[in-house]
C-alpha cells in the first residue's frame, strides 16, 4: 500500500466534494474525507488541475470547506477469499449483519468492517509444490467453503510467470496467513495470502479463453427455458413497468436456477423486498444439495435509501465477486435488480459534475458503461482446463414502462436474451408477465426447436385472430380460426403461465418441460372438430382446468398420470378424423 497524502475540501454539493491536492492522485482512487472523528469513504471521479472531484459513499452532512481528505493510493477494491458465500454485504462490501451487531438498527456513517472474518480459520490443503511454475489464477491450494472447494489462487494482479518457493503445509489458517511465497524471474519474493484484493471496476481476466455460451441454463420457469432460454455464461435482461413482476421472477430464478452460486445484487431495490430474501434463504432448502440455500448465495444489498454513490459501486462489487468464483471453475448467476437504478445513479453523479447531458439526461457514456458491465459475463476456459461461467440477468425499470428509453435500448444491444414484461399481461394476472410476442433469445431451448417454432406460430396466429375478432366480432370469425385462437389461449394458460407460489407449479424441471411440452404440442397439432363456437370454448375451458391440475401434481404421482389420461381422453373425443 502506498503512503497516504492529504488534500483539502474546497466545496460540497450533495454527495460530490471538491478537493484540492498536491501529490499525484489517480482516477477512481479511494480517499477518506474526515470531519471530527468521522472518516467517509469516497472515490475520485474527475480531476481538473489541482482539484479532484470525489463521490462520497455516505451522507455528507457536517463536512466543511478546509476539512482534510486522505488519499489512499488504492483503487476501489473488493476483498476476495474464503468466507464470502452466505454473506450479506452492502455495495462497498461491508457485512451488514456484522454492522448491525456493532451499530444496531441504523447504518452508522463512517463505519467500515472488513469483508472477510480475520479470526476464522480454514483447513488449507496445498496443491502446488515448490519449484512449480505458476501464473495469475493458478490454484496453490484449496479450503472447503460449504459444498465447494474454494481455490486459493495466485493473485490476479501478478503478471507473468512465477516460481513457487514455498507452500504452507496442510493446516488451519486465518485468511491473512501467508500460504505461499512466489519468486519472479529476477528472484524477488512475493507473499500470497488466502485473501487478495481486486479493483472492482476492472474485469478479472486470469483465464485462457472466453468461449461461446451454448449450454442452456435451466431456470425452471417454463416460458423462459422453453421459449426464451438463457445460456450458461450468457446475458439477458428483463425490462418491464413497475408492478409487472420483475422482482418475483428474479426471486424464483435465484431459488431454482441450476447453477453453483447465485449472487443477488439488490441495487437501489426496496428494502422490504430484499428482507424477504435475507430472512428466507437461510431456511430454504437448496433442491440440489439439500442444504441451506444461503450456502450458495451471496447478497449485495444496497437499497434505494442507501447513498447513491454506493449504489453505483454495488454492481461492480457484485460482478467482481462473480468473476472470482468463476476462476474456480464454478457456474455463477448474477442477478442485478435493477440496472436502471444503477444507471440513475450514474445520471445523478453526472448531473452533479455538470456534464453535458445525453438522451433523457443520462450521461453520454451510458451505453459503453452498460456494454462493459454485461461483457463481464461469459464462459471461460481456465488454465487447468476447467470451465467456469458468469451468467448475468439484469432487470431494467424503464420510465413509464417505455422500452424506447436509453437504458433498455443500450441493454438490448449487448444481451443474448430479452424477456419483456407487459402491463397488459400483468393486469390480466398472467404470470410471469413475459410478453411472448415481443421477447426473444439467441440461445438454445430445452425442448426441440421445431416444437417451439410451431407453438410460437400458434401464439402469433391466435393473436392475429384475436385482433381480427376485435374488428369483425366473434360471429365474423370462422370456426377454424376461432379454434386457433382458443389453442393459443390454452397454451398461454397452461404453459406460459405458472404459479410462483405453488410448491409444484413454481419450478418445472427441464425433463418435465420436455415431457409436458411434447404432450401440449400434440394437442396444438391435433385437428379438432367443433360445430359451434360455444362448444369449442367450453371444451377448452375444461381442458385448461384439467391441464392446470396436471401442472400442480408432482410428476411421479398418481394425480399426474390420472390428469394426463383425462387430457388424452378429452382430446380424443374432439379429434377430427381426416
Amino acid at each position, binding site marked *: 500500500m502506498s503512503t497516504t497524502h492529504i488534500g483539502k475540501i474546497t466545496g460540497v454539493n450533495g454527495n460530490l466534494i471538491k478537493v484540492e491536492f498536491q501529490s499525484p492522485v489517480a482516477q477512481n482512487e479511494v480517499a477518506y474525507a474526515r470531519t471530527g472523528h468521522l472518516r467517509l469513504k469516497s472515490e475520485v471521479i474527475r480531476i481538473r488541475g489541482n482539484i479532484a472531484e470525489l463521490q462520497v459513499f455516505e451522507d455528507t452532512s457536517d463536512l466543511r470547506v478546509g476539512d482534510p481528505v486522505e488519499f489512499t493510493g488504492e483503487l476501489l477494491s473488493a476483498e476476495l477469499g474464503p468466507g464470502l458465500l452466505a454473506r450479506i454485504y452492502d455495495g462497498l462490501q461491508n457485512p451488514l449483519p456484522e454492522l448491525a451487531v456493532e451499530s*444496531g438498527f*441504523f447504518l452508522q456513517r463512517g463505519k467500515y468492517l472488513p469483508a472477510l472474518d480475520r479470526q476464522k480459520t480454514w483447513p488449507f490443503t496445498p496443491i502446488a509444490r515448490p519449484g512449480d511454475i505458476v501464473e495469475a489464477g493458478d490454484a496453490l491450494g484449496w479450503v472447503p467453503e460449504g459444498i465447494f472447494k474454494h481455490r486459493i489462487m495466485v493473485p490476479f494482479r501478478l503478471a507473468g510467470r512465477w516460481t513457487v518457493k514455498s507452500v504452507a503445509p496442510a493446516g488451519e489458517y486465518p485468511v491473512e496467513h501467508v500460504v505461499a511465497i512466489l519468486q519472479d524471474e529476477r528472484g524477488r519474493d512475493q507473499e500470497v495470502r488466502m485473501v487478495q484484493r481486486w479493483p472492482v471496476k476492472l474485469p478479472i481476466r486470469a483465464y485462457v479463453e472466453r468461449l461461446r455460451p451454448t449450454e442452456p441454463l435451466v431456470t425452471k420457469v417454463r416460458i423462459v427455458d422453453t421459449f426464451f432460454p438463457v445460456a450458461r455464461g450468457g446475458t439477458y435482461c428483463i425490462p418491464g413497468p413497475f408492478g409487472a413482476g420483475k422482482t418475483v421472477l428474479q426471486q424464483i430464478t435465484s431459488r431454482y436456477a441450476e447453477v453453483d452460486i447465485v449472487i443477488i445484487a439488490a441495487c437501489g431495490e426496496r428494502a*422490504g423486498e430484499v428482507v424477504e430474501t435475507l430472512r428466507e434463504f437461510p431456511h430454504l432448502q437448496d433442491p440440489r444439495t439439500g442444504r441451506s440455500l444461503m450456502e450458495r448465495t451471496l447478497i449485495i444489498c444496497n437499497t434505494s435509501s*442507501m447513498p447513491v454513490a454506493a449504489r453505483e459501486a454495488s454492481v461492480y462489487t457484485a460482478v467482481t465477486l462473480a468473476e472470482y468464483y468463476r476462476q474456480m471453475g464454478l457456474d455463477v448467476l448474477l442477478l442485478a435488480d435493477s440496472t436502471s437504478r444503477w444507471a440513475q445513479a450514474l445520471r445523478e453523479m453526472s448531473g452533479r459534475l455538470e456534464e453535458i447531458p445525453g438522451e433523457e439526461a443520462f450521461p453520454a457514456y451510458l451505453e459503453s458503461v452498460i456494454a462493459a458491465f454485461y461483457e463481464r459475463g461469459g464462459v471461460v476456459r481456465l488454465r487447468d482446463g476447467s470451465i467456469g461461467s458468469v451468467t448475468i440477468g439484469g432487470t431494467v*425499470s424503464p420510465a*413509464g414502462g417505455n422500452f424506447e428509453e436509453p437504458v433498455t435500448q443500450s441493454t438490448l444491444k449487448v444481451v443474448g436474451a430479452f424477456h419483456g414484461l407487459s402491463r397488459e399481461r400483468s393486469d390480466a*394476472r398472467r404470470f410471469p408477465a413475459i410478453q411472448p410476442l415481443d421477447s426473444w433469445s439467441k440461445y438454445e431451448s430445452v425442448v426441440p426447436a421445431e416444437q417451439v417454432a410451431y407453438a410460437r406460430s400458434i401464439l402469433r396466429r391466435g393473436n392475429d385472430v384475436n385482433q381480427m375478432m376485435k374488428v369483425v*366480432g366473434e360471429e365474423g370469425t370462422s370456426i377454424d380460426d376461432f379454434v386457433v385462437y382458443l389453442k393459443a389461449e390454452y397454451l398461454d394458460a397452461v404453459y406460459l403461465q405458472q404459479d410462483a407460489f405453488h410448491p409444484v407449479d413454481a419450478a418445472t424441471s427441464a425433463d418435465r418441460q420436455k415431457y409436458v411440452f411434447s404432450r401440449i404440442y400434440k394437442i396444438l397439432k391435433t385437428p379438432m372438430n367443433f360445430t359451434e363456437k360455444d362448444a369449442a370454448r367450453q371444451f377448452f375451458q375444461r381442458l385448461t382446468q384439467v391441464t392446470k391440475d396436471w401442472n400442480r401434481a408432482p410428476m411421479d404421482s398418481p394425480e399426474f398420470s390420472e390428469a394426463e389420461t383425462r387430457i388424452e381422453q378429452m382430446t380424443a373425443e374432439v379429434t377430427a378424423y381426416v
Partner: protein
Amino acid sequence: MYKTFQKIDQISGNVIVVRAEGVGYRELAQVQSAHGTSLAQVIRLEGDRVYLQVFAGSRGITTDATVRFLGHPMRVPFSETLLGRVFNGSGMPRDRGPAITENMTPIGGPSVNPAKRIIPRNMVRTGIPMIDVFNTLVESQKLPIFSVAGEPYNPLLARIALQAEVDVIILGGMGLKHDDYLFFRDILEEKGALSRSVLFVHTAADPTVECLMVPDISLAVAEQFALQNKRVLVLLTDMTNFADALKEIAITMEQIPSNRGYPGDLYSQLAARYEKAVDFESAGSITILAVTTMPGDDVTHPVPDNTGYITEGQFYLRNGRIEPFGSLSRLKQLVNDKTRPDHRTIMNSMIQLYAAYKETLEKQAMGFRMSAWDRKLLKYGERFEREMMDLSVNIPLEKALDLGWQILADCFEPAETGIPTKMIEKYWPTK
C-alpha cells in the same frame, strides 16, 4: 457562541448565498432581516460561498441580513406531548399550544440496516374489499395512492387511517388546501383519533421551502415512536407537491435538470423518505400511505413513475374507485396465505374474469353480437363493480370472500372460472 455573518452575496428564488467560513454541509442557520426571522439550511458549499435555502422564503430579505449558524442540522423535538398537536413545516406550533423542545432529534437520519428488518407479517384490515381481498395492506408497507385532482383521495386516506389498527397516526400535509387540513383535523377529532395523532401541516399558502421539511419531520417523529414499540401509520399528502418543491430549489440552484425539469436525484430523494417504512426487529413499525397526484392523469409523469419503482405497490384511485388494474400490493403474498385458504384463489380468479369482462365491454361497444359467454361476463362484471369495487362497501375480509364465491356461483359454471378442482369442491356454494 454562534458565528454570525452579514455578507449576503446573492439572493435568487428562496436561496441566498452568504460568504462564510467553517460552516458544515446541511447545517442550520437563522436568517434575521428587517421583515422577520427564518430558519435556513446549507445546501451547497463552494469555497467561502455558502448556499442556504430559507424556509420562510426570501421575500423581504435584505442584503445586510444577519445569518447566524447554529452548528447542527435540522432537528425535531420528540415526546409524548406531541400527540394531539399540530405543527408547521419548520416544526413550530400551528395550534395555539406551546412550542416543544424536548429530546431534539436530527431529521433525515441514516437508513435502517436491512439486516435489522423483519419480514412484514401483519395484515392491516381496512374493511374495503378492493384493498383487503385484492391488494392487502401490510404493516410496514409503503404505498402511494395514485390519483388526480378531484378524486376523494384525502377521505380515502382518512378512512384507512381510522379503520386501521395502529397506535399512532402522523399526518404530513404538503401544499394542503386549508379546507383539507381542517378536514383531516376535524375527522380525526370526531372519531376520537386526534389524541393519538400528530399533524405536520404545510398549506398551499405557506412558503414552498417549508414543504420540503414535512416528510422528514413526520418520519423522524414516526421513527422515534416506532423505536418505542409503537405501530405508526404515516399519511403523506401530497408527495407531488413535495417533488415540485424539490424542482423549484433545483432550478434556482441552476442544477442540470433531468426529466421534465425535476432534479436528477428525484428517485433518491423520494426513496430516502419512503424507505423509512419499516418493521423493526423487536420494536415497532412504520407504515406509509402517501398520495401522489398525477398531473394530467399520466402515470409516466416522473413523480408517479419514480414512486412506483420505490414503493411496495400502489392503489389507483379513478372515478371514485380503486382500480383493479394497476393497483398492487407487493407484500400481500406475505400475509394472504394466512387469512383463509381460498383468499388467493378468489383474488386471482375474480380479476382474471374481470379482465375478460372488460374485453367483452369493448366488443359490446363495437356493436358485436354477444355470445352466451359474453352475457355471463356482463352479468358478472356489473355485480363485481357494484358489490365489491364500490368504495362505500365496508365489510370484513371473510364476508368479502364469501360474497366473491356467491357472485361467481351466480354467474358461472365452476369449470368456466379456471379455479382448481380441489378449491371448487371445498368452496363452491351449493344452490
